[in-house]
């Protein structure tokens, strides 16, 4: 079996700060980490490897320094990792990203399963996984919380829905996105970290893949971010003082004044 895990590098903080002038995320002094949802995807791939035997590839698109992040993924026991990195890939929206990833997947070739995290914690779109499946023309299932069995080219799994769970069977090769209920990601060991440091991350540039340049990067992106902003919380609280009657009176006056 060959499994490909898609991994994104995201800012390692919950407190995203925005530059008020440029409306972009301030990334200085914020460390980069593996998208937390992708750690579940990595763990699930490694568990499949341990149960059924498989070769696990990590695939990411990003700036050259994302190599370090992929080394960390190797320390979590994936076998090989590739980074799509080229100026031509820059500025991509979800469509152009999934197109570039699909070209990377084709380069790896002969895969049985692609696992993605449910979404990235910086963009929160949850679009790249399904879009990648569409580009590759393979079946996909989102929000998978359990893989029950893989047998004869079929995979049985549980999908979390708004009302409960659906048990589904999907024909391989396929793509799934996973939720955090699926497993408890392991921490690296000293041995796996030593191994990761010795593992070379393969860099894939535009000329290494068979791709249509007009579908990549900023040119290939039909959606563009016009503006991002931090929502303003301008709710004011008033504490009413006095006896119960006085407070009721004040409350009634306030409600009337705002025509409640």
């Amino acid at each position, binding site marked *: 079996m060959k499994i490909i895990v898609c991994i994104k590098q995201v800012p*390692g903080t919950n407190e995203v700060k925005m530059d008020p002038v440029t409306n972009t995320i301030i990334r200085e002094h914020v*460390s980069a*980490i593996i998208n937390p949802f992708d750690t579940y995807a990595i763990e699930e791939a490694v568990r499949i490897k341990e149960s059924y035997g498989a070769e696990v590839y990590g695939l990411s698109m990003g700036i050259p320094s994302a190599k370090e992040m992929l080394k960390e993924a190797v320390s979590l026991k994936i076998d090989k990792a590739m980074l799509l990195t080229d100026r031509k890939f820059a500025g991509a929206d979800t469509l152009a990203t999934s197109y570039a990833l699909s070209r990377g997947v084709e380069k790896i070739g002969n895969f049985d399963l692609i696992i993605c995290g449910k979404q990235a914690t910086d963009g929160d779109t949850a679009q790249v996984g399904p879009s990648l499946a569409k580009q590759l023309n393979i079946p996909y299932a989102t929000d998978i919380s359990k893989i029950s069995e893989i047998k004869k080219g079929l995979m049985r799994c549980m999908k979390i829905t708004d009302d409960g769970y659906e048990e589904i069977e999907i024909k391989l090769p396929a793509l799934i996105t996973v939720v955090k209920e699926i497993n*408890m990601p*392991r*921490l*690296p*060991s*000293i*041995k*796996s*970290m*030593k191994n990761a440091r010795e593992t070379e991350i393969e860099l894939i540039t535009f000329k290494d893949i068979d791709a249509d340049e007009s579908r990549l990067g900023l040119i290939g992106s039909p959606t563009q971010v016009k503006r991002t902003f931090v929502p303003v919380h301008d709710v004011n609280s008033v504490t009413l003082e006095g006896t119960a009657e006085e407070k009721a009176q004040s409350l009634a006056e306030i409600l009337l004044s705002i025509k409640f």
Partner: protein
Amino acid sequence: MSNIIEMYGEYLRDESRQTGTAESIIFPKTEDEIIASVKECALTNTFITTQGARTGLAASAVPFGGHIINLSRMNNVIGARYEEEQDRFFLRVQPGVLLTEVRKYLLNKSFLTSNWDENSLNALRNMKKNEWFYSTDPTETSASIGGMVSCNASGAKSFRYGSTRDHVESLRIVLADGDVLSLKRGQTYAEYGKFELKTESGKIFYGELPKYEMPNVKKNTSGYYNRPFMDMIDLFIGSDGTLGVITEIEIELNRTQTSDWGVTIFMPSEDKALDLVRALRGEKILAHVKELKLKPSAIEFFNHNALNMLRQQQKTNPAFSSIQEIKESYHTAIFIEIEGDSDEEIWEGIEELGDIIVELGGDEDATWVANNPLSLEKLHNFRHACPECVNMQIDDIKKSDSRITKLGTDMSVPDDKLKDVMKMYNDDIEKNKLHAVIFGHVGNNHLHVNIIPRNLEEYKLGKDMFLMWAEKIAAMGGAVSAEHGVGKLKIPFLMKMFSKEEINEMRELKRIFDPEQLFNRGTIFAYWEKEGAL
């Protein structure tokens, strides 16, 4: 009397789950209020119990009748000081401020400075968020700084940074006659066991220190600190509130290190795990094994039964499901924390550690490495899960017999006695067929043995065994209380560590400052009715 029980019942108890009695309580906000209260008690010969956050485990804050001075409302950080020449930073705090609050203020630089003087504000101006931290880290972070000074608390990182004592720069103490003693480290020393202490009103206390010797251990809070040429501030640290009421403390901070990693290592046997501990603290254990460069700030231990207990809880209790999976082949665990100037520097040490694990017959793959705050929190959760599991099990047993309480030790021994003391624990637990888990601060040979009794008979057996251990540990040159203080619960242990004469010497020392035994009666030694009686 009934009134105080109804309205303030919680102040008759502390985390030791013991309950006492009291007739009155005050919550002072200033030192002057404390002085007035102490003077009034002195007139009526009413004894006084001082309380901080009541998180102690040895019942020091449980009142023995009389009056309670509860310091929880003296909870401000009141100043800061920076000594540029030696790059030292200090905070001046009231005794009731909680450890967790101090940590929060330092992390966010969010001090309430409305009453600070100009010097303090200047010191703060140059300080950055999270630039300094307070290193003493007892598991219970809702402890008050005053309480920590009283029992000389320590924690996991005491392995590198020392206990509370090592970070107290100055103290203000209200004595039994209402006079105030202000002590600053480095200013008042004993000479050949004799001391002279001058109060703010000019009164001088002359005295002679006891003759007993303190154990040669890194962590100790068993009775009064005592050395012939000691800094006299040390007498009041770890004195369990028996000499006066601490009203102000200056604590020293440490610079925060850039990188903080954790590693949990699973060894194939307890013996191998203890060898690894020795290597980690820089001992040369085998001729062919090189010495480790790595300098951990904490070395913690989990025995086989502790891991089994956690495995069991993981299967049945969803609250523990976030703990990493503990493989069946994992026998004994060591957890270390390493701080350094860079990740690369720490990694070099960890690579070497991996080689030593292999040399000792372990497996580099049987380790969990945390190299960022999120994963380090996972390892901390794993460590904290041990005492939590024990408490849950004891609470369960209590339902069938309310007389059963937690049975956990807090004893430490010198470095060369680590294997001996572990053998003693294991042999006695096995001989008495008791169920116990062992975990704790193995770097300082300070392990918490927790007996989990299945019935009252086992509980009594465990208690007897603790008393026997106290005697054996004293004979090894160890301490019967390493970080919780003697309080009211460990008096029998202290009597195994010191002779009657030596304990009488401690009483004589108390008598110099508190002749009427006003403060914390029944703490460190039993209350004595008559002059000189034991």
